[in-house]
């Protein structure tokens, strides 16, 4: 009964989204204040019904209702209750219900927190979000309905959740990632709304900036968590594989990063208007493209959901409609966005332009590598290929290095034009300091690897410049100076430091890690990077829904115990799935990562041991980047509605004020 209620609720949510797409639009054209303002309540209705349906499915999982096909496939009575709840988004259908819930949450948030918008604009934005939701709900109901029953012959026991997904990572990674993915629909909606209204001034940039920053920050957290999860859960010790699905989340992130920067230029200086609109459209289009790649099964990937051509075709149509219509609209309106504001080539605008250029090229190269297998198969009569990580490393890394260099100088740049002295005066000294730090690190790590040397130098240069810039801005009275800085500045500062830390982590892990697969019998010892790794044997232990072989491995350094590690090889009883559970000795400076391979007889096991210096910095940097994104939203420009309203009501030639 509850499940039928959920099914019914999602149909009502679809109806709400249809109304949301139509009624406010009608209101705009008829200048009817009631219709014009109907968006808020419709968005609330859509959210409530989607939430009800989500709760119903969750109840189905918690109550082990195996008459629901989706629950029967992805749950089991032996599953701990928190995994039963997270199993709701453990496979295709439920994860798309979560996607819809996130979409309606964003829509609700926009309707609640956009009081500073005039009614006309607000109605247009909500209508765009409503139209996008229609497609999502239709997709859910017609191709991936999680509420289908297996009646009358339902199984008495479920097939179990994939053991890899029985983990804290699954509880948090998909929701955060979706919040980011779907959040990109908000700047998209703002862009489309301002295109349709013809209100092509920089105001839309000011409105969509905080939304973009938040969505981008969530996407950053989602990707960072995904990387961390892959690292500790897959048992391979890798944290990025250039896998098609990772790329599917990385491309929208790169574009959103470009968008975050170009929005700043558009808001502050009114430049790049048409380009920023195009970026907003592309960022959301790429997040849809990601959904297509993941859910259609066209690409080989470790993540791919079960393959169903019907779904792929549906998303492809949706993709074509959304991208096609928005680009058409863009093409019709772009001519009106002539900008006459100029800027010098050493200005902050130029830096942002270069940033956008590099990031866009990076997206194109990643896209090419990701869909090349598809194109090859189509054009070469079904010949299957894969594109290896070396391609991405060769192409992507050289693009990122100039980006870091640009970042180092950009914090010194000013809008419109920057004097050469400001930009370059202190650079010889700062480069020298960075070089000193790099050489110190090289001596410390006793390596002269050129990659390590070069990337560290760039990162230190960036850090030194950021520190010096902060020092300069804060001035003599440091406490008052700290208070004086805007959240936008803090956000920028944190995010750029985050990039430097991440890049340092990446280059150190890549160049200085020591990784071996080795056969070990009880008592065997292995020397690695100054650590002694001693295998003490394997014992059998029982978990709530699995049995495991648990290895005991002693990590010591110069005879002194550092940590005991207990990696496991688990056999999940319901599904008979085997899974590797690695164990990691964690520290800020290095991880010791051990995982069991398989038993080779005579109590000997194959064991994987990695020593990864600074690997934590990769995710630490990611967290800082995201925190930076969240911090910018605290800026008073976005909070103080009165000020904005006052500014907004200043005469603006093509601003249509609505009847309300």
């Amino acid at each position, binding site marked *: 009964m509850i499940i039928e209620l959920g099914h019914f609720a999602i149909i009502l949510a679809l109806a709400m989204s249809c109304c949301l797409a139509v009624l406010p639009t009608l209101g705009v054209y008829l200048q009817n204040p009631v219709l014009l303002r109907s968006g808020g309540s419709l968005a609330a209705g859509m959210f409530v019904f989607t939430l009800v349906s989500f709760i119903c499915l969750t109840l189905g999982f918690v109550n082990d209702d195996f008459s629901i096909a989706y629950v029967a496939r992805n749950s089991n009575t032996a599953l701990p209750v928190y995994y039963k709840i997270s199993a709701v988004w453990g496979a295709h259908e439920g994860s798309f219900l979560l996607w819809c819930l996130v979409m309606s949450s964003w829509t609700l948030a926009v309707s609640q927190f956009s009081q500073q918008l005039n009614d006309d604009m607000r109605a247009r934005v909500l209508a765009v979000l409503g139209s996008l939701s229609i497609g999502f709900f239709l997709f859910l109901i017609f191709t991936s309905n999680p509420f289908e029953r297996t009646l009358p012959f339902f199984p008495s026991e479920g097939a179990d959740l*994939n053991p*890899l997904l029985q983990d804290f990572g699954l509880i948090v990674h998909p929701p955060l990632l979706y919040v980011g993915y779907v959040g990109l629909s908000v700047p998209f909606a703002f862009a489309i709304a301002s295109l349709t209204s013809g209100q092509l001034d920089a105001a839309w940039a000011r409105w969509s900036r905080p939304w973009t920053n938040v969505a981008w920050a969530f996407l950053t957290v989602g990707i960072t968590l995904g990387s961390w999860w892959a690292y500790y859960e897959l*048992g391979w010790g890798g944290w990025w594989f250039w896998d098609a699905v990772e790329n599917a989340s990385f491309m929208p992130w790169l574009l959103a990063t470009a968008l975050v920067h170009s929005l700043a230029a558009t808001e502050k200086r009114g430049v790049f208007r048409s380009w920023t609109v195009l970026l907003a459209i592309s960022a959301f289009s790429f997040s849809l493209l990601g959904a297509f790649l993941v859910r259609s*099964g066209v690409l*080989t990937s*470790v*993540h*791919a959901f*079960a*393959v169903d051509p019907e779904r792929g075709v549906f998303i492809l149509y949706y993709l074509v409609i959304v991208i096609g219509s928005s680009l058409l609209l863009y093409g019709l309106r772009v001519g009106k966005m002539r900008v006459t504001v100029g800027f010098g080539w050493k200005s902050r605008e130029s830096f942002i332009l270069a940033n956008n250029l590099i990031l866009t*090229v990076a997206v194109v*190269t990643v896209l*090419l*590598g990701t869909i*090349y*297998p598809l194109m*090859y198969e189509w054009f070469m009569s079904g*010949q*299957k*290929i*894969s*594109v*290896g990580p*070396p*391609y991405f490393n*060769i*192409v992507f890394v050289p693009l990122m290095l100039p980006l870091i260099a640009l970042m180092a100088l950009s914090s010194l740049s000013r809008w419109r034009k920057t004097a050469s002295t400001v930009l370059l005066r202190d650079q010889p000294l700062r480069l020298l300091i960075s070089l000193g730090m790099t050489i110190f690190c090289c001596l410390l790590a006793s390596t002269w690897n050129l990659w390590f040397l070069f990337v560290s130098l760039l990162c230190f240069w960036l850090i030194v410049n950021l520190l010096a810039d902060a020092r300069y801005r804060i001035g003599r009275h440091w406490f008052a100076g700290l208070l004086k800085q805007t959240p936008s500045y803090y956000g920028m500062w944190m995010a750029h430091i985050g990039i430097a830390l991440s890049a340092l982590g990446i280059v150190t892990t890549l160049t200085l890690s020591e990784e071996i*697969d*080795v*056969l070990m019998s009880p008592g065997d010892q292995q020397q690695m990077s100054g650590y002694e790794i001693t295998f003490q044997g394997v014992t059998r232990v029982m978990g709530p829904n699995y049995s495991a072989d648990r290895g005991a491995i002693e990590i010591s350094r110069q005879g002194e115990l550092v940590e005991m590690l207990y990696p496991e090889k688990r056999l999940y009883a319901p*599904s008979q*799935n*085997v*899974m*590797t559970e690695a164990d990691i000795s964690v520290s800020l400076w290095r991880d010791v990562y051990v*995982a069991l*391979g*398989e038993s*080779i*007889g*005579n109590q*000997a096991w*194959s064991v*994987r041991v990695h020593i990864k210096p600074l690997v934590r910095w990769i995710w630490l940097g990611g967290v800082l980047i995201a925190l930076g994104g969240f911090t910018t939203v605290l800026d008073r420009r976005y909070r103080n509605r009165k000020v904005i309203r006052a500014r907004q009501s200043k005469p603006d030639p093509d601003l249509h004020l609505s009847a309300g």
Partner: protein
Amino acid sequence: MKTHRRNQLLLVLVLIVGAGSTLALVLQALNENINLFYSPAQVMAGEAPINKRIRAGGMVLMDSVQRPDNSLRVKFLIGDLKSAQFPVVFEGILPDLFREGQGVVAEGRLDQAGVFVADEVLAKHDENYMPPEVAQVMASDKVSNLP
């Protein structure tokens, strides 16, 4: 005005040359790093190149996995539903879902003797999943087995 025009032209030229050479380099990198996929039948028929990095996949044949006791070296046979098969050697830790009777994809090189020396063996996270390439190998067999 004229210098302005000339500067614009110069900028456009620089952009075209830059974009063109970037694209050429990227395509070059792409072509050097693609790994072609071969089915067991193709490997047997000698269609797969020797000593070039490729991917090959199919089913791990039953009772074919051998592991000499004191090393991480594994030997097994990959085949399709008919009789095509080829030997694979791999040194290292196999993925959790590697099992006899399961579909796998191996990455590596074919040596002179026709042995596939794999440096990576991929199985799926999910037991219900079959890599698309392998699924195709199996499906084409089924079709051709029909009377």
